[in-house]
């Protein structure tokens, strides 16, 4: 599937621009290749892609061990904020790193909305 990053990057940029609490956002495939991203200057694209796919893979392994089949979302609470990894169309992983000022409820709602819009673009 050929995906045009040019249509997705503006969407991510707009998402970040409208919300002060979003610190990073990235879309990668399941192998960790970033398609589009808005990252802090100190972040390395390859590293971000690798941790995204690796985290997803590890979570998948763990859930299989626990008798579950499929991951829909990973939610991480850290000292500096939340990280949400959300699968889109079973092929893409969306990562959103938000600070603690954003409540989980707001964050999940935002991520869900964004993933729906991205799914539309990725399908198209």
């Amino acid at each position: 599937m050929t995906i045009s990053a040019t249509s997705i990057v503006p969407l991510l940029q707009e998402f970040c621009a409208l919300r002060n609490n979003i610190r990073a956002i990235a879309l990668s495939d399941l192998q960790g290749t970033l398609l589009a991203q808005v990252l802090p200057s100190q972040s390395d694209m390859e590293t971000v892609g690798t941790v995204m796919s690796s985290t997803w893979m590890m979570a998948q392994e763990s859930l299989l061990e626990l008798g579950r089949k499929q991951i829909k979302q990973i939610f991480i609470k850290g000292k500096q904020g939340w990280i949400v990894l959300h699968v889109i169309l079973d092929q893409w992983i969306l990562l959103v790193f938000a600070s603690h000022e954003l409540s989980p409820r707001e964050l999940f709602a935002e991520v869900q909305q964004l993933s729906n819009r991205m799914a539309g673009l990725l399908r198209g």
Partner: protein
Amino acid sequence: MFGKKKIKPHVLLVDNFEQVRDVAQSVLESNGYTVTAVGDVGEALKALGKKMPDLIICEAELSGIGGIGLYHRLKKYPDTARIPFIFLTAYEHRKVEKELLLQDILIPKPVKWKDFFGQIAEFVNRRTPPPAALPQAVARQQPRKKNKQAGGEPASAKHVVSSMQTKTPSSRDTLQKTAARNVPQRVELKPQEEKKKRKRRAPLAILPEGHATRNFADPTSLFQLKQIKDLFSTMLKSFKSGMACKNESVVFPSSPCNWQEIIHLALQPRETHAFYSRPQEEVLLDLEVIESMDMAEPQETTDTLSEDDKLVAELMLEEAVSSDMAEVAVKSGADEPFLQPVPSAADASAREAILPTQEAAVAVQEGRSEAPVVCEEELPAAETAQLLSDPGLLRWQAVCGDYIWQSSQAQTVWVDKDEVLSTWEKSLEREKVVEMCHTMLSMAGLCFQAFGEEFSVAYVMVRSERDHIFFTQEEENRVYGIAAATDSQASDSLGGYA
């Protein structure tokens, strides 16, 4: 006049990154090399056609046939095969090293530029001279004053230069090759101190507790993609094989460091295993049974229990008494009790005797905390009380919320005490619990580190098609927990996100 002019070794530098080319070129030129820097294989071949270099430094990941293809092509022909070759690359080292002939080397990226020239000099020095160069090599072993001739030039340089003056241009290539063989001698002129400096290791720094995981230890400044990928795959293999080792701190050298050393440290087997071979069933505390009785306050319990539950409760208590098990008192959280009191255990004096702390006993007496609980289980009472009253567990409870404990599945492991609490549907091995928690939390920590944040995670929640799985740990007390929660439970725990 010509004889007094120094011959600068010529280096062909092939790298597709302009910045790397620029820095490497300036380092080499400042150390007396002439550098031809090119960006791809085609340009490199053109440069080779114009002038044979004394040394080739090449990136492995290049367009077209790539650095490795170029390397193989050069090694096919005797004229180019003799040129010392260095791969300067971040490409998978094992793959590159497989391709390398013995005499050539790989310098991994990122490069420490201050050591870069030292590494090249050492390589060139180490390189075995071909038989044709042996006379020069023997000459080099002579005392220095004997090598000195007119113009203070080393014997080999002099030899090369004088040959250039007398021989025809057609033999120039051969002479340049001879010069290439003589590179070591010129490089050797660099002060020895530089080499010594490079060999000096950075002091080892033990990272603070809580920053070390089985495979990673605060690698904020040490990220290198290829190594991390290797570590991930190793970790995954270990995970799949079901091997769980004690999560000991890994001692990483502080930056600057050698990545191979880090990999060695990270992958070396841990000394001790976390758990004994004691079957899980022996220490199983089935909270679900107790919870399913739906027990509330002592005086109300007999009314709310069904006949079956009453029977189960009586049997449990009888068994506890007959096996002379001590009653277990549990100090639960002030707001979120996860074990409900059993009525017939309301023996204040006995409870006080086995409460884990005096403060807890006072809290119970004053009504600030929940009444202690009798649990049917086979653990020594003191240990269980300690386990259940552990701050780690309380934190775990606070993280996941009482809903999970009361009506869902959970499994918690105390690493150092060989304890397990479980209401899980299937018997999970304790090693698996620790391994899974550890893996998930490590990966989550790395996610934050990828954004330059602290390697610190409170918990990870993974949403599956059925429910939500929480992974958490209390690092200080070494308690690991996995819990499953329904959508509504997880939503409640996370402030109604769903």
